[in-house]
């Protein structure tokens, strides 16, 4: 396996693992409080919708010339990666609330209990909608990464494989634990994914703009290293004078 293919699988695996942990928390909260019948149907519908989306958009992306694809996708990936990295840096430096799966589970479960109960054998629209939304919205970020990474690297199936492996691993751990996966270092994983997305976005964006990096593909590990060191350095600088906590979207 080449370095690019390895990074492709690693990035999609890590991103998918993080989003699966978040989706699993919502699904568990709904399933435990409202029953599993409609919750499972919601999960299946969301996964089917995501599969269709990846298949349709993926086919379209492969028809675009590689330089245009690298410029557009590199730019999008860089914007996406910078947002992930920004949030991860703010969380690591104590300026933004850490994603707390136990607290989210408690909140979602309380909201689900507050809704009127339905017959366990009947269709529960609330459970279906909530589990569908949870899986689809978290999965959308993974689909975005699978499509952009996969198309630019020329292997959407390999990217999808990395993502699917993470879903299976995290789901298996979740079933075994029967609780929200609070012990998975979600914020650290998000930091790593942010570094990878930013680095690859920068690499492909510049190549798509018609410029070669010094050392060509050999520049990529250097970009990843410099991005990681810069991000960790930013955390240390921000930590040296902590003020409080930034509020805002916590995905």
């Amino acid at each position, binding site marked *: 396996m080449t370095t690019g293919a390895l990074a492709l699988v690693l990035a999609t695996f890590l991103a998918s693992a993080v989003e699966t942990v978040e989706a699993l928390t919502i699904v568990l909260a709904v399933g435990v409080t409202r029953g599993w019948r409609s919750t499972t149907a919601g999960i299946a519908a969301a996964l089917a919708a995501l599969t269709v989306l990846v298949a349709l958009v993926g086919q379209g992306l492969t028809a675009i010339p590689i330089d245009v694809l690298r*410029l557009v996708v*590199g*730019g*999008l990936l*860089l*914007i*996406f990666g*910078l*947002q992930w*990295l*920004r*949030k991860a*840096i*703010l969380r690591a430096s104590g*300026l*933004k609330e850490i994603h707390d799966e136990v607290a989210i589970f408690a909140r979602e479960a309380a909201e689900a209990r507050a809704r009127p109960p339905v017959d366990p054998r009947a269709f529960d629209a609330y459970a279906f909608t909530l589990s569908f939304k949870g899986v689809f919205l978290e999965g*959308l*970020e993974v689909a*975005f990464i699978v499509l952009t990474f996969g198309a630019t690297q020329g292997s959407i199936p390999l990217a999808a494989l990395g993502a699917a492996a993470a879903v299976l691993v995290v789901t298996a751990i979740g079933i075994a634990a029967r609780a929200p996966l609070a012990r998975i270092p979600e914020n650290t994983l998000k930091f790593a994914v942010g570094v990878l997305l*930013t680095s690859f*976005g*920068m690499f492909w*964006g*510049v190549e*798509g*703009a*018609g*410029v*070669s*990096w*010094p050392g060509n593909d050999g*520049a990529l590990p250097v*970009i990843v290293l*410099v991005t990681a060191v*810069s991000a960790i350095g*930013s955390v240390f600088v*921000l930590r040296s004078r902590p*003020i*409080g*906590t*930034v*509020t*805002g*979207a916590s995905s």
Partner: protein
Amino acid sequence: MSRLRAFAVFCYDFVIGDDWRLALSVVLGLTATAALAHRGVAAWWVLPAFVVVASGLSLRRARRKNKWR
């Protein structure tokens, strides 16, 4: 109409996120890189420079925003 607006807001949040200036810096960085490349300049360093400056300013803004809360 409200659904269309909600979808637009979702798309904005999904791609642009908390700080639109980061997205703008990427677009400007890529445009400058392409323009310099067109003139034969090995401009590989332009986009990283934009990214470093924009990220630094974005983090500083987040920290300052926090200060006045």
